[in-house]
């Protein structure tokens, strides 16, 4: 079994325009990143040794923050969801489009963040890069609020999305047609779909601070039956004291359907709330608890080897966990209680590369090869 001891940084990709919200490998040699300005960039990672990859394509069309992206299993389509209330499909393979450019390091000087503006370091010099600008190939407007949740089945046939009105929509992915929808009680913070497409796990919460202390204001976490749109399992009841007071930042099924990972720390209201739970999707019972990231876990992904989970968090750390014993195998980064979060990660389909992005707008590509 790999201990990832030889894992190392391959590339550091500067974007530094706004914080990066999501990452997705397209095949093993391309990575896409979305940001809060509504832009998506795609880099080719297959470059000669010693060269830093540059973005080759820019996907434009969203008019507000993109919350999540994913690439279909055949690597032909990229799908994104946004605060502009749309779900967009993009051709992940085409190199056709308008010639254009993107300015890296145009990050807005964070003047005024603390009012002690003299202490803010100057940004790095901007770099202009020529890219192909592409438009979406499909625009789904079935949601009426910010779309936060996005997941697909491994066979690429079913897509599920969830929004801030608590609406969950199950789609025929290839056709882009709505198959079913149902209404949850709170905003959908994160969701996952079981590999067989029969269940959706969705974390819900409205982050009121004016709480009356009633049960109805606590987050919800249900397993829903896709066919009926009914809740099959109330995970809040199953988890008891392990249930957090905020929504999960990520809910992910393992490829074999044996594990359901829920990452805590969607909003930072308490310390030591960033644990990761491994649940049995059939019963909702906790199988194992991982220490996670004490300031909050932002994202998790199962490694294709089926034996590891990788997480990133608000502590500026990336951690690799052994699923069988829950032990930490390897970590990257330097702990910071209030630093720049690592907000998103993605693992290449062959498991040999990891991409992680921080809120300052930088992407780091790691080699995970043994």
């Amino acid at each position, binding site marked *: 079994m790999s201990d990832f001891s030889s894992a190392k940084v391959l590339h550091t990709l500067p974007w530094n325009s*706004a*914080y990066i919200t999501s990452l997705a490998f397209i095949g093993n040699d391309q990575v896409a990143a979305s940001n*809060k300005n509504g832009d998506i960039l795609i880099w080719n990672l297959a470059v000669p040794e010693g060269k830093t990859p540059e973005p080759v394509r820019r996907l434009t069309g969203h008019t*507000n*923050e993109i919350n999540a992206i994913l690439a279909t299993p055949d690597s032909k389509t990229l799908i994104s969801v946004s*605060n502009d209330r749309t779900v967009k499909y993009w051709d992940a393979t085409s190199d056709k489009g308008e010639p254009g450019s993107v300015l890296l390091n145009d990050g*807005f*000087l*964070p*003047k*005024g*963040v*603390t*009012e002690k503006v003299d202490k803010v370091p100057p940004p790095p010099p901007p770099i202009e890069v020529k890219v192909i600008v592409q438009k979406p190939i499909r625009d789904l407007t079935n949601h009426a609020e*910010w779309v936060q949740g996005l997941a697909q089945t491994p066979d690429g046939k079913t897509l599920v999305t969830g929004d*801030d009105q608590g609406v969950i929509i199950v789609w025929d992915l290839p056709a882009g047609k709505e198959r079913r929808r149902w209404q949850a009680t709170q*905003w959908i913070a994160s969701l996952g779909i079981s590999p067989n497409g029969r269940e959706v796990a969705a974390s819900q919460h*409205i*982050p*009121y*601070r*004016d709480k*009356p202390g009633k049960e109805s204001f606590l987050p919800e976490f249900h397993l829903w039956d896709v066919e009926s749109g009914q809740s099959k399992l109330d995970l809040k009841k199953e988890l008891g004291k392990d249930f957090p007071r905020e929504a999960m930042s990520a809910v992910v099924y393992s490829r074999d359907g044996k594990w359901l990972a829920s990452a805590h720390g*969607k*909003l*930072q209201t308490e310390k030591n709330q960033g644990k990761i739970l491994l649940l049995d999707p059939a019963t909702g019972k906790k199988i194992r608890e991982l220490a996670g990231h004490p300031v909050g876990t932002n994202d998790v992904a199962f490694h294709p080897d089926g034996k590891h989970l990788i997480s990133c968090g*608000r502590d500026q750390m990336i951690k690799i966990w052994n699923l069988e014993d829950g032990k930490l195998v390897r970590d990257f980064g330097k702990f910071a209680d*209030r*630093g*720049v*979060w690592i907000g998103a990660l993605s693992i290449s389909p062959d498991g040999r590369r990891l991409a992680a992005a*921080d*809120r*300052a707008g930088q992407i780091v590509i790691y080699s995970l090869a043994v």
Partner: protein
Amino acid sequence: MGAREQLGIPFQQVTSMNQNLHQANHVSRRAMLKGTVVTAGGMAVANWGALFHSQTIAAEAKRSGKRCIMLYMEGGASQIDTFDMKPGRPTGGPFRPIKTNVDGIQICEYLPKMARHADKLAIIRSMRTKSVDHGIGGYHMHTCYPSSEKFPHAEIGAMIAKYCENPESDLPSFIKMGSPGCTAGSGYLGPNYEPFTLGTDGQLPGFVNPGVPLAVQDRRAELLKSFEERFAKQRPAEPFASHRESELRTIRLMRARKAFDVEDQWNKARDRYGNTPFGRGCFTALKLAEAGVPFVEIGQVGYDSHNDNFPVHKANLSVLDPAWSSLLQDLHDRGMLKDTLVVWTSEFGRTPAINGQGGRDHFGRAWTVVLAGGGIKGGQLYGASDRDGFEVAEKMVDEGAYFATIYKALGVNHRAKHYLGTRPIWATPEGSKPIEELLA
């Protein structure tokens, strides 16, 4: 051992008390209560209206008929995510502006109900304030003075209670609900104008529900009074007076508590106000204003969004929007809005730049407050921030001008002079002037 021995009261004194009780049965309840207006320590209890109001203080009180309801966004609400949006700018964030019922005024999409009341609002987009942390900011925005002066300044609620209270009212004149944005209280105005604090949702504390009939309360009050008069003759110290005042307030609140009981009406109103503590607080404020309380502050907690500013503000605005808009509508429908100033404020605003945690931090250089109703000319924007919101671009408003405007709208002299001992102090600092363009 008998009861009097257990209490350590000599038999002769008990007899004397009984005589006092007997005499009290022949005086009216009002007269009896008036008799307690000057405490044993010589302190009058002015804030609590007629029942304990001395003639002297009643003569001083100016019944303006004006009221103020202050909605205090505890933690610092973001101006860019509410009333001073910067669409398309790097500081803009994910919220989008919507039109209002006034041409040229746009506000956040998550304040859709308030958008229908923009004709009542004066939106000041050019606040520049000096105290940008919670304690000192809350103090400054409640008293008009920096806490660094180390002087017991009075909160705005105490000042308005002093000058706008109704001498005939049995209710307290300065009421707070929710998390306190400031604990300065009445300061140099003295304990008579200390705030009375309710639960977050406007519920009274349990001690005001005595569970005994009014007549029994009266007899107990008089018994207490006779005890204390005897006690105070030997101990005329000020601490005793404060203690006595607290007792009197409790007794009075027991009598006035029905004004706070809005349960039946709330059942009909909660769908409009939102079934939240803040929503109920706003509805209770309406009822208290209707009953004659001149100043009510309602706090909405949770705006201090150094992390995750946008989901937190989105959730908070979903609570604020129905409550505030329903309050304005109900005040308008009852013909009360022209005499009721509704203030929306915080201790400061939030930074235009969005930090690495998706948050906005404390910011006092260019932020927004909103005034509506009594004495204010609605449907206007006043001042402006620059295109990214970092600086005031037009018509800077400081704490002094903000307070002076509120005081003038309520008919209070913004340069009213008071004394702490021999030291003079004014309601607003020297040079503070009301903003005439905001006044109706």
